[in-house]
């Protein structure tokens, strides 16, 4: 084959470039999808429920606009808020603007039912301001627009689902038309999605070049030759282009997961080129072969280990196909495609390109050769490992046992709010909403049947009272709160029915019927459908974590177990819970499949089940260490960190393969196990270390991502790769020295080509 590569080198280069150009033309068609709901499979019950609730009660996408200052109950702040709310009311795409200025004050006064706008004029004097604060505190409908300490006031903007999240730009424009000293903050899921979309592109634009620069630096530092930088760099670049082109070809969209894809290709795809360039440099320094012969030699020497490591990496990454979340499965396909292309480019395109250059030969190469043979640190490392196999094995066992305890502490949390740091705009507004507005996540509970009957509403009231005892619950609103508020207009404070749910169903119905004739009738649609067949209770959560949501839902389910009118509870936070189950399920499936792929492939390669087991051992221990550390440090398994283990297995197994391959070759020279371990660590060990460091350098930029899960992902992948590296350099040789497996005893097939 090496003869053909050199003979047809022009055509190989042309085909590779044509493929890349074709992919490049497809890239402009790509679009971004930041809607985390789309990441969730349609089979998730909660997703179906939410769609049903939207069809019953209309669009329920809420954007919270907040003004923040030391005291918001001032003429200046309220005037600004009113002006903003009027202009936003005219903004196409917003269904409704619910503001404190649309609140009605219902009173019974001198026999008159008064229903007047809460704000009939804005306060000027300190006395008026203090009076207004007292009125706000006593009016349940007005109170929801102000924080208890009056440092925040808000508008609730209802967006229909057909309006894109880009309406946030228009909202910001409206606010900028009314400048003021108060800080403006936005919250709610549409704003979070908008921020995710912006940050995905920002991350891609910032992280991709950073990873590229680090890779170039790493390659130059390792090879001190521009050919050594140029070749792997071109391969990585072409692979990334091909992967994005494939994404466009399949009609897939750029998602949060897509940020990881080019970073993974940068980290992994240059590994094969690195081994080939390292071998080219070795041959250039140690022989006088012409470039074409060197190219043929590097191909024939390294094609098998490179092919095996490539196939195991692709297999490990393709295990993501079993993931229930579509973008994770897409990530698996696209990264595997990129790596397969990089593998082909490394084996054919790189020697074909390299053959056009002249080898760089150091005049002092004989001195250099001797230096290479005396890698002092590797020399000491090799001696230490070969002398202490039992100590190392015991230490690995101890670390594994400790890690198991950490794994037991591992939490799953897929709360979308945690994507952002607390210092970011989203993080700040989310924590303010949770702290001062009763929470930014909601659970809707659907009741059907005669929902305006006294019986149903009294039951709903009792559920509300019980649920409010949970510290995670902020506010609860439902037809109950509305009917109680309406009762204030029909009864005097001294009467029994004042601010109470009537016992008579017809009375409740008549309250609602009268309210429905008014201009504020739209407020009803949040809780009641048009023909009063369905009612909704909305529970806001101050704590959107999976555990808190789960606890509230379990309490609700136990309270409503025998309620024939209660249908289901749904909400974005419940999608998180189902998502968490999917994440764990996906994680376990991907992990088992990845380990199985590695085991089967390497059992086949080494023609031994023990060979498969030994190859899978370091990655299994590294997985334990990874999850153990996550458990100990309280890093939750989320949609990004759930991808870790399969990716780590795909990459980490390479080091063991390279080690075992070389060890077997060394043994074929008739030397002892100790000598073979020494020789392998001092030669291939260097390549393995460079390889692992290049992966670490490739993934490191993720630490600077705008998304918290991706930052953790970057940090954890570095830790897990280092764990794989240490296992391959210390544990694998130690086990070999203790067990002396038969599959590593040389056959005639292996001869050293020196």
């Amino acid at each position: 084959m090496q003869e053909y590569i050199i003979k047809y080198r022009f055509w190989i280069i042309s085909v590779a470039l044509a493929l890349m150009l074709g992919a490049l033309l497809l890239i402009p068609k790509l679009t971004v999808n930041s809607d985390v709901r789309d990441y969730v499979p349609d089979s998730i019950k909660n997703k179906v429920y939410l769609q049903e609730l939207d069809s019953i009660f209309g669009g329920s996408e809420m954007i919270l606009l907040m003004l923040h200052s030391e005291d918001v109950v001032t003429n200046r702040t309220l005037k600004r808020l009113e002006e903003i709310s009027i202009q936003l009311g005219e903004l196409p795409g917003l269904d409704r603007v619910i503001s404190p200025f649309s609140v009605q004050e219902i009173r019974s006064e001198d026999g008159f039912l008064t229903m007047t706008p809460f704000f009939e004029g804005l306060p000027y004097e300190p006395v008026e301001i203090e009076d207004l604060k007292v009125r706000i505190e006593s009016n349940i409908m007005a109170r929801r627009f102000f924080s208890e300490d009056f440092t925040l006031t808000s508008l609730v903007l209802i967006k229909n689902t057909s309006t894109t999240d880009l309406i946030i730009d228009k909202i910001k424009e409206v606010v900028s038309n009314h400048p003021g000293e108060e800080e403006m903050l936005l919250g709610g899921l549409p704003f979070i999605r908008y921020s995710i979309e912006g940050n995905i592109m920002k991350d891609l634009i910032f992280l991709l070049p950073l990873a590229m620069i680090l890779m170039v630096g790493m390659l130059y530092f390792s090879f001190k030759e521009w050919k050594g930088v140029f070749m792997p760099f071109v391969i990585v670049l072409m692979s990334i282009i091909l992967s994005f082109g494939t994404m466009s070809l399949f009609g897939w969209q750029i998602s949060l997961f897509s940020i990881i894809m080019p970073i993974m290709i940068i980290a992994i795809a240059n590994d094969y080129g690195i081994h080939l360039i390292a071998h080219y440099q070795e041959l250039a320094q140690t022989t006088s072969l012409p470039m074409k012969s060197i190219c043929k030699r590097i191909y024939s020497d390294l094609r098998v280990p490179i092919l095996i490591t490539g196939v195991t990496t692709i297999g490990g990454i393709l295990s993501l196909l079993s993931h229930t979340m579509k973008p994770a499965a897409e990530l698996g396909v696209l990264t595997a495609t990129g790596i397969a292309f990089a593998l082909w480019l490394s084996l054919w395109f790189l020697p074909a390109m390299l053959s056009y250059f002249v080898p760089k030969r150091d005049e002092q190469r004989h001195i250099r050769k001797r230096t290479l043979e005396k890698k002092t640190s590797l020399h000491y490392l090799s001696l230490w490992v070969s002398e202490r196999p039992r100590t190392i094995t015991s230490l690995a066992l101890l670390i594994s046992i400790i890690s198991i305890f950490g794994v037991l502490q591992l939490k799953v949390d897929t709360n979308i709010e945690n994507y952002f740091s607390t210092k970011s705009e989203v993080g700040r507004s989310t924590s303010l909403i949770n702290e001062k507005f009763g929470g930014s996540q909601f659970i809707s509970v659907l009741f059907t049947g005669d929902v305006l009957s006294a019986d149903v509403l009294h039951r709903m009231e009792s559920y509300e009272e019980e649920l409010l005892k949970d510290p995670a619950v902020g506010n609860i609103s439902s037809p109950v709160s509305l009917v109680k508020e309406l009762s204030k207009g029909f009864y005097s404070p001294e009467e029994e029915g004042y601010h109470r749910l009537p016992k008579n169903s017809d009375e409740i119905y008549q309250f609602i019927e009268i309210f429905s004739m008014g201009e504020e009738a739209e407020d009803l649609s949040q809780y009641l459908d048009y023909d009063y067949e369905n009612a909704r209770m909305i529970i806001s959560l101050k704590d959107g974590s999976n555990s808190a949501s789960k606890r509230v839902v379990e309490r609700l389910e136990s309270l409503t177990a025998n309620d024939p009118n209660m249908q289901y509870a749904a909400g974005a936070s419940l999608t998180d819970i189902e998502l968490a189950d999917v994440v764990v399920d996906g994680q376990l499936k991907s992990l088992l499949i990845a380990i199985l792929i590695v085991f089967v492939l390497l059992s086949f390669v080494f023609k031994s089940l023990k060979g498969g087991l030994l190859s899978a051992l370091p990655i299994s221990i590294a997985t334990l260490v990874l999850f153990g550390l996550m458990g100990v440090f309280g890093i939750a398994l989320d949609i990004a960190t759930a991808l870790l283990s399969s990716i780590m297995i795909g990459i980490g197994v390479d080091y063991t393969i390279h080690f075992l391959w070389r060890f077997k070759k060394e043994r074929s020279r008739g030397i002892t196990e100790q000598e073979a371990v020494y020789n392998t660590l001092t030669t291939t060990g260097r390549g393995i270390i460079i390889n692992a460091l290049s992966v670490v350098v490739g993934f490191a930029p993720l630490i600077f991502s705008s998304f918290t899960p991706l930052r953790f992902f970057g940090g954890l992948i570095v830790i897990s790769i280092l764990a794989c590296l240490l296992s391959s350099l210390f544990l694998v040789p130690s086990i070999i020295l203790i067990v002396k497996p038969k599959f590593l005893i040389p056959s005639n097939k292996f001869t050293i080509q020196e």
Partner: protein
Amino acid sequence: MYRVYVVFFTFLCLLTASSQQEAKKEFTEALSQLMTQNMEMTIEIKEWSSNEKFKLKKYAVLMGQFKDVDRIKTVIQQPEKAKGITIVIEKTQGGTGIIEIYTPANGKTRKLKATPKNMALVNSGSSISNFGNIELDNMRFDPLERERYEEKDCFKITIWDKKDDSKGKTVYLVDQRTHYIYLVTEFNVDNSEKSTTMLSNYKKVASAPNKIQPMQIIHLDSKSSKKSEIAVLQINPRPNLEEVDFEVNKLVN
């Protein structure tokens, strides 16, 4: 040359004023033949929400005028659970007054001070009463225009509320021959469409030979996409109405 401009400008002003007067005259004629006072009627309202959900309501409405006070009494007949809810509006020429609401479920009557805002609250969905509420002296008319509507030659009459800047214009399409109002389009201040009302099936009111009544009114709210269809099931003149007829506990029919 200056004189020519003055003469031309004066002529233009007179022409415009004359055209505005003409619009007011045609509109007054259209209103005058509608029965808006001293009558009783039963109306059926079919309402559709934006997601096509349907509600059926039936009201008995009594409308009377006593000197400068207008009174409207609406008794809900359907839905069954709301049956008997009675709303009485007493409105003076200035737009103020009192609203009384009687809820049979608790036997309570509550009074509200009528303001333009809460007048809408209890307007009982009766668009017919809206015509009776138009105070022509408070209206500004645009010059009369002409337009074809459903193969009929119509006047296009645009009026503005001089007292309320927050309201946009209202455009009426009035049949040039019969003076039947066929279409009413309300606009917001920014000139976006607020609502459309189509009036049809005009019939002469028995015992009131000069009066007519649209028996079907279709109203479409542009923002909420809500649609309501009002069918006048029965209409009778009540020339001898007394104030006692508008007490909340005295049911119509």
